């Protein structure tokens, strides 16, 4: 007898179930993505592709999803919500040719007078309104929507764009003539989360007869008025008023004050020519605030360009330089044109230059022109700064050569770029009417992911002060879930060293240990620091010495000294750049990207975070100077332990992972290492790993435990002792 439901129908249903499960929002998420593409297309495109840097997916759809989900992770790491915000996403035909669109996004609706609204009779985008009131809008399929143009990846859609860049390695910039999908996704999601002025594009009346939330913070310095109190013609005039238009949100401006730089200038020995420069890009390295001084020389090399007799003859630096002896250790001046900036940058670097200055080849001399294609032309990262000057300034500098020292520095008397009277500028140019108000000003430096122009400068996931902007609008910060940063961080290419971070004292006290090597011997540093939104800072962080292991330990033997500082610049809860700045001049400052050893889900609201009650730092008060740091690595029960101690007056650290069973966490394979070097001289092949034995932690409550050390190494005795949390907490 035949089944009443055919196999084909079952398969169709199974496919539908798979699709539905794929699409259903997860209630614990901050942001839930609903992929609307059908199978085989867009985000579900099964075409095989080679892995991209940092993106191991091998189908086009999977690579696209990985990048979009990274963008969501980046935003969700910094934001919290009272409900899950739903985003409909898809690929579509958004057109090619003169009107090529890479992507589009926005809120799917507006709400006002909802519960928890911070003000009444004001229009809020659905996403923010839902986040505040703790409930989605059931009359809509989602709170926001984004679409991307699949034809970009087919090539031949637009001149000079061959496809999207799906790489996720923050050290590898997008290939030439590609557009960073991560930067685009962050930008579009930023609009959907609230960075969009809800005004009528024709007459500057507020959309739907009420002011919008963002307008509360839009202010004209010229008129000394908020948008809320202006007439529509005044709003229209202010929208093209240049640096007069500012955003007044407090958190945005605090972040802008510490981040934005004043204009750069080059000072030639013997006189300040007052040359204000447009920086090309916001990727590293930057010229330090105190400036960079070196002789300045003119590039000289083969290749096309101005002919003999032209003062810029042989200065394009499109091929390896002929005067490397002269360039080495100098700032090299090159002429713009004929080849991408990246090639000039590379040739200057290869010749040993400490910096490169590119003189423009066309006018006008304003910085908008100078920065016209900026970071899009940089497809690599090199360790020397690259700046540009206008055509006339370039001519002045060239005519002054040869000269002695030149200094690349900043005009500290000028306001930070993209600010006016201490407040950050919104875009307000008569040249960019379609972009005005709903973006930060293009004049700011470093650039923002919410500038009107996408430049690939945020390919590394840097979102500057977009989170602060959204928090000013009313989005909750990540403060209630800071512990999602806790755990072990390492660089897979530098296996054998790392750092462990915990958030003690109700997540308000970050404690960091970093374990590394010096001259083949173990070293560890420890300190408490502060969370500053986009980063953690531990300054100073301490190093110890002098004690012994086990019964030979005496707290009186421990010598504590300041080691230096560690800064963690966060990308999301799994990715960050660690910069270690030792005070010891024999050790170099060293910066490296690290990831969590066991990545966690960054897109979880604070109320759904895993229980990390036992995470933290413990010590024996009678043995001050040694201790252990414990962090939940993977929900539910994978834990990492670092035990920092001594042997014969030198530092020693043990590390391992274990599983929790009730009140016990057992680490059956603790390891001790040796053999490598600090910073740039580290080689993971030098690391020798030795089995130490086991450590068992038996908790009597969340603040107190008994530690049992079972060592298999004769120089480390086995022992048992009680420990207590350094910063006790409420256990309930």
């Amino acid at each position: 007898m035949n089944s009443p439901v055919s196999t084909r129908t079952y398969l169709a249903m199974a496919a539908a179930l798979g699709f539905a499960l794929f699409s259903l929002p997860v209630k614990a998420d901050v942001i839930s993505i609903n992929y609307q593409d059908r199978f085989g297309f867009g985000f579900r495109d099964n075409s095989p592709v080679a892995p991209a840097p940092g993106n191991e997916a091998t189908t086009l759809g999977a690579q696209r999803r990985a990048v979009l989900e990274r963008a969501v992770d980046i935003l969700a790491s910094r934001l919290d919500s009272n409900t899950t915000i739903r985003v409909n996403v898809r690929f579509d035909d958004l057109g090619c040719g003169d009107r090529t669109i890479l992507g589009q996004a926005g809120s799917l609706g507006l709400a006002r007078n909802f519960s928890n609204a911070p003000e009444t009779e004001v229009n809020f985008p659905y996403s923010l309104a839902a986040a505040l009131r703790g409930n989605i809008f059931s009359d809509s399929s989602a709170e926001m929507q984004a679409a991307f143009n699949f034809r970009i990846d087919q090539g031949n859609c637009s001149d000079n764009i061959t496809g999207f860049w799906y790489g996720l390695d923050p050290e590898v910039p997008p290939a030439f003539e590609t557009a960073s999908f991560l930067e685009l996704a962050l930008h579009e999601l930023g609009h959907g989360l609230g960075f969009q002025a809800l005004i009528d594009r024709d007459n500057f009346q507020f959309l739907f007869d009420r002011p919008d939330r963002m307008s509360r913070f839009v202010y004209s310095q010229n008129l000394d008025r908020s948008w809320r109190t202006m007439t529509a013609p005044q709003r229209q005039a202010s929208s093209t008023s240049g640096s007069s238009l500012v955003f007044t949100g407090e958190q945005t401006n605090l972040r802008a004050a510490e981040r934005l730089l004043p204009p750069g200038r080059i000072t030639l020995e013997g006189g300040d020519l007052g040359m204000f420069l447009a920086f090309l890009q916001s990727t590293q390295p930057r010229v330090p605030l105190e400036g960079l001084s070196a002789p300045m020389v003119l590039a000289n090399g083969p290749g096309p360009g101005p002919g003999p007799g032209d003062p810029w003859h042989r200065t394009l630096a499109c091929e390896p330089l002929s005067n490397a002896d002269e360039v080495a250790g100098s700032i090299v001046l090159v002429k713009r044109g004929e080849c991408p900036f990246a090639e000039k940058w590379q040739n200057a670097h290869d010749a040993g230059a400490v910096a490169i200055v590119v003189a423009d080849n066309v006018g006008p001399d304003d910085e908008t022109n100078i920065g016209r294609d900026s970071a899009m032309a940089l497809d690599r990262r090199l360790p020397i700064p690259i700046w540009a000057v206008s055509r006339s300034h370039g001519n002045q500098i060239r005519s002054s050569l040869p000269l002695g020292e030149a200094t690349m520095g900043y005009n500290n008397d000028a306001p930070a770029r993209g600010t006016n009277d201490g407040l950050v500028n919104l875009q307000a140019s008569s040249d960019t009417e379609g972009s005005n108000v709903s973006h930060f000003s293009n004049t700011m430096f470093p650039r923002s992911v919410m500038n009107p122009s996408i430049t690939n400068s945020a390919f590394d996931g840097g979102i500057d002060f977009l989170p602060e902007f959204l928090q000013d609008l009313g989005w909750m910060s990540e403060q209630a879930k800071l512990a999602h940063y806790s755990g072990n961080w390492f660089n897979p290419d530098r296996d054998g060293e790392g750092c462990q971070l915990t958030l003690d004292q109700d997540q308000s006290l970050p404690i960091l240990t970093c374990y590394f090597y010096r001259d083949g011997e173990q070293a560890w540093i420890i300190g408490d620091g502060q969370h500053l939104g986009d980063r953690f800072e531990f300054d100073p962080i301490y190093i110890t010495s002098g004690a012994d292991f086990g019964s030979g330990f005496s707290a009186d033997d421990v010598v504590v000294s300041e080691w230096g500082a560690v800064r963690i610049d966060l990308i999301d809860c799994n990715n960050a750049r660690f910069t270690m700045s030792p005070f010891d001049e024999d050790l170099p400052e060293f910066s490296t990207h690290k990831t969590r050893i066991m990545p966690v889900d960054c897109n979880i609201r604070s109320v759904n975070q895993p229980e990390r009650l036992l995470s933290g730092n413990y010590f024996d008060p009678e043995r001050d100077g040694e201790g252990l740091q414990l962090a939940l690595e993977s929900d539910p029960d994978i834990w990492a332990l670092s035990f920092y101690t001594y042997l014969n007056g030198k530092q020693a650290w043990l590390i391992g992972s274990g599983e929790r069973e009730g009140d016990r966490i057992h680490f059956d394979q603790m390891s001790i290492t040796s053999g490598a070097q600090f910073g740039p001289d580290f080689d993971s092949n030098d690391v020798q790993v030795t089995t130490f034995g086991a450590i068992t932690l038996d908790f009597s409550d969340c603040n107190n435990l008994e530690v049992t050390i079972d060592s298999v190494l004769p120089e480390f005795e086995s022992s048992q002792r009680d420990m207590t949390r350094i910063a006790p907490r409420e256990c309930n």
Partner: protein
Amino acid sequence: MKHSGLPRLAFSIVNRTLALLLILAVAMSFAWAESFDIESFEQIDPEKLRQAEDRMDEYLEPGTARLLRQPRNAAERYVVARQTRLAEQFAETPQWRRQADGTETLQSFWPAARATRVAIDEHGRVQLKCVSAIERLGRPLPDFRRPQTAPPAGMVK
């Protein structure tokens, strides 16, 4: 033959699950129907489509997608359908709804939506600019949903 309680319960669960799946499948097919139609796209020669897009202003009025002349081939018909659909979406007039708790909501995407557009400057260099999504229709035109004020003085005869 009587079913025992457990299989009957299982049968009931299976039926309910199938029903739910069918509802979901219908709902999802709705979502598909609203989105891009790859079959139509794939029937168009890519070169002809690019040519049709390049001369779009010949047969579609920028800003409104009103037909200026009949499309002459499949590629032009495809572009007309795409742009017309877009113009219809832009022209929708959303309505506020008031909920029992006093919350007022309005489903509206296009008036404030943003789009990132590829622009080529006078030197042939690419610029990626975020603009109002309305620019997908070409040059922005006045918002015809609103009552028009008096025409500019120069147009009064």
